[in-house]
């Protein structure tokens, strides 16, 4: 098992170096001069050149790439943001807890609400409960996040005046972003859980358990649920990885200062150190989450575990 984890960690490092290379190359060719953004319009040609020289922007692609990879992976120096004028990691880590917390709450709520609803729909297949839930789930999946956010703002902030429309100062500020982020998660999880449960319900071991007279409750909780949940873990892991970097819409609509908004602003202002480091950090988190998901997968799915153990024994024999 440890070998498997080590192998995945090695892959993670490769993924990070690859990401760094790709993001550096893409940003190198994106038009836009940081000197125009950082310096006043009245700055002379010489002042702009001096600024570029100071940042090493006049060096060749290979020199810049080498310097970037060396600083990032050897010295762990992620640079200073040109627009925020603070070390990128400082700015990222001040925003990361908010984004992380928002993601965590939406994912947990999405799972806690979506999974039981999916099971409930599957157990009532082709009845009104199933149809109602699947229609609602379809609506939830189809609704654009920004539209839902604005509708919720209009309802809860403008009409009912129950909740604030923006800010991060109190618990109330988190309610609407959380609801907006959770709706799609609930819908996706419910749909996935329903189909996964239906697949499991039709399995031979469930029929056998029922034929042996095992109580329905035990059939559901002991035999059906553990197997039906396996694909869901993968989906939730992917959702978490995506939501850490992909909450730009939520953050923008609710003026929620998270990593997504930082990245968006950095792209608009061609803040190269901020863009490179943010993408790298997000790639790192996503890769770590997926690694954890794979490990959990390997732990709970005896088939994967057996496959791994079998291949390990095979190699030792050879």
């Amino acid at each position, binding site marked *: 098992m440890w070998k498997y984890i080590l192998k995945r960690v090695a892959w993670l490092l490769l993924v990070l170096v690859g990401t760094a290379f790709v993001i550096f190359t893409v940003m190198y060719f994106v*038009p836009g001069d940081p000197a125009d953004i950082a310096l006043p319009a009245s700055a002379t040609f010489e002042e702009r050149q001096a600024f570029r020289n100071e940042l090493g922007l006049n060096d060749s692609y290979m020199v810049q790439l080498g310097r970037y990879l060396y600083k990032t992976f050897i010295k762990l120096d992620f640079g200073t943001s040109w627009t*925020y004028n603070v070390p990128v990691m400082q700015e990222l880590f001040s925003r990361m807890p908010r984004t992380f917390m928002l993601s965590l709450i939406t994912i947990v709520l999405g799972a806690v609400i979506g999974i039981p609803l999916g099971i409930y729909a599957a157990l009532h297949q082709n009845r009104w409960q199933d149809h109602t839930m699947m229609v609602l789930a379809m609506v939830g999946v189809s609704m654009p996040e920004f539209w839902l956010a604005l509708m919720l703002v209009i309802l809860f902030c403008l009409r009912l*005046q129950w909740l604030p429309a923006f800010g*991060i100062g*109190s618990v109330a500020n988190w309610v609407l972003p959380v609801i907006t982020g959770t709706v799609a998660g609930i819908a996706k999880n419910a749909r996935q859980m329903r189909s996964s449960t239906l697949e499991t319900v039709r399995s031979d071991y469930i029929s056998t358990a029922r034929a042996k007279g095992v109580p329905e409750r035990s059939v559901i909780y002991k035999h059906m649920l553990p197997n039906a949940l396996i694909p869901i873990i993968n989906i939730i892991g992917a959702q978490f990885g995506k939501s850490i970097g992909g909450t730009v819409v939520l953050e923008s609509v609710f003026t929620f200062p998270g990593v997504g908004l930082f990245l968006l602003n950095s792209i608009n202002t061609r803040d190269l150190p901020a863009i490179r480091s943010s993408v790298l950090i997000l790639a790192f988190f996503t890769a770590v989450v997926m690694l954890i998901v794979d490990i959990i997968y390997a732990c709970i799915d005896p088939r994967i575990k057996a496959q791994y153990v079998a291949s390990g024994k095979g190699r030792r024999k050879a």
Partner: protein
Amino acid sequence: MKKFVSLLLILIMAATMVCGAYAENGHQALLNVAGSDPEDVSPFKTDKGTKSMLWSVYESLYDLDPKTGELCPVLVDGTRGENGGYTIVDDTTYEIYLQEGIYDHAGNPVTASDVAFTYMKNIEKGFKSYYSKLEEATALDDTTVQLKLSAPIENVSELLPYFINIWVYTEKAFNDSPSGLTTDACGTGRYKLTQFVSGASLTMEAWDNYWQKDESKINERHQAHADKIVEYFMSEETQIVIGLETGSIDICTKISTESCSDFLEGGMYANQVAVSTLPDNKEVVLNPNCSPESPMSDANLRLACFYAIDNNYVVRALGDGTAVACNALGVKEGTVDYNEAWETVPSYQNTYDLALAKEYLVKSNYNGETLTIMTNTDNNGAYKTVALVISSFLEQLGVKTEITVYDRNTADSKRRDPKAFDLEIVSAVSVASSNMEMYNYLFNTQTTGTDKTLWYVDDSRLNELFTTAYAVKTNTPETMEALYQYVIDNGYSFGLLRMNANVAFRTDKVEDIMYQGQHLVVPGSSPLK
């Protein structure tokens, strides 16, 4: 399952109600402002529009009266020196006289050495262009700062940044700040920055121990009417509108005309929210690419195109109240060198004449090429609408066009390729007190490091006229007039319009909006009800 769903619904309802009650009690700030993200709170880049809130935290040596464009002493002692706070010792030596008894929010006395430190630190931070000729700033005594320049200052607009683009901070405050005054602030202004949440908000509280005790010396832009101001950095206009409608926002420093419809006369919230509108101090210009690579290098084609465009119609196409048409290449309000006669002397700036345009077109070398109109996405895509209308006018003339739209940074880069465009719709720089600031951006060849301007005008006569009008000793209405006429005669730039800057405010809380020199809102000094 039914029990689970019911329980869940009850919990959600209870949570939202509790949070709602909590939120209701949380609104204790006296003035809530919706503004743009300043990114940091450093006192270096002073002309950045999104940092206007910091104008109440830091103070400069002088500020500009928005109505007259005149310098008003703030930290300097206006009663000393030959020029109301400063003396020109010789062409390259200036002495500035500070008031006595200035101290900052941390209680540090502000002396001439701190002002000198601020100059040199700002240069070190990359803002040399504000004080491009400054060689050294030194303190002669506690209240006298001496500026040694490498060459004489040639123009009023060159002199202004030395006095205005300097938010003074003390050396001690800078050294004591863990972030080098990037995420915390310590100025001498009427408000103290008490909290800055990067990307979210900043909070300021009125400073009771303001150093200036003589009320008669405090101008209206430095009053503190609100006890506490919270600025939220909001980009989503729907949120801002809802904030204004519900009263959770008291002032919005910038809002588009489309979003103001509910607040204008006859609108649903017109009795609760008012809109103060000022034409922006930036002119949106149509600049031809004068490089030999472009057909627009032909003066007759430039004049043909310009006479074929009715900028009043362009403004109408943008919608009521969105912009004002320019009848001359220059900003009128608050500038010292605008000549009102420019508006009446017939030129393409104030005349739409398709017949004359066709005459110029016949004289030109235009061979049916498709001209590329380049613009950017600023101002919520308004420039694209401008480009579409201009394209229609040129179509009427018989000139084919295509439109390319980029984000501003990309457009700035594309401009460096003379083959990338033929005409560009772009916003010129802000004008504080002199139109030479805009002319400097449009016609100064120093910004490119070549003999050409940013739009590839390679004309020694233009350069000569510009240099004469720009130099402080030869800057007269006559030299300005000569430059203006030459630009218009050759069709080097067309001042199309100025976007209206809307400020919305709750009338139950705010009586009127206070502006400072660069058309920026000063919420704390705005009279309250």
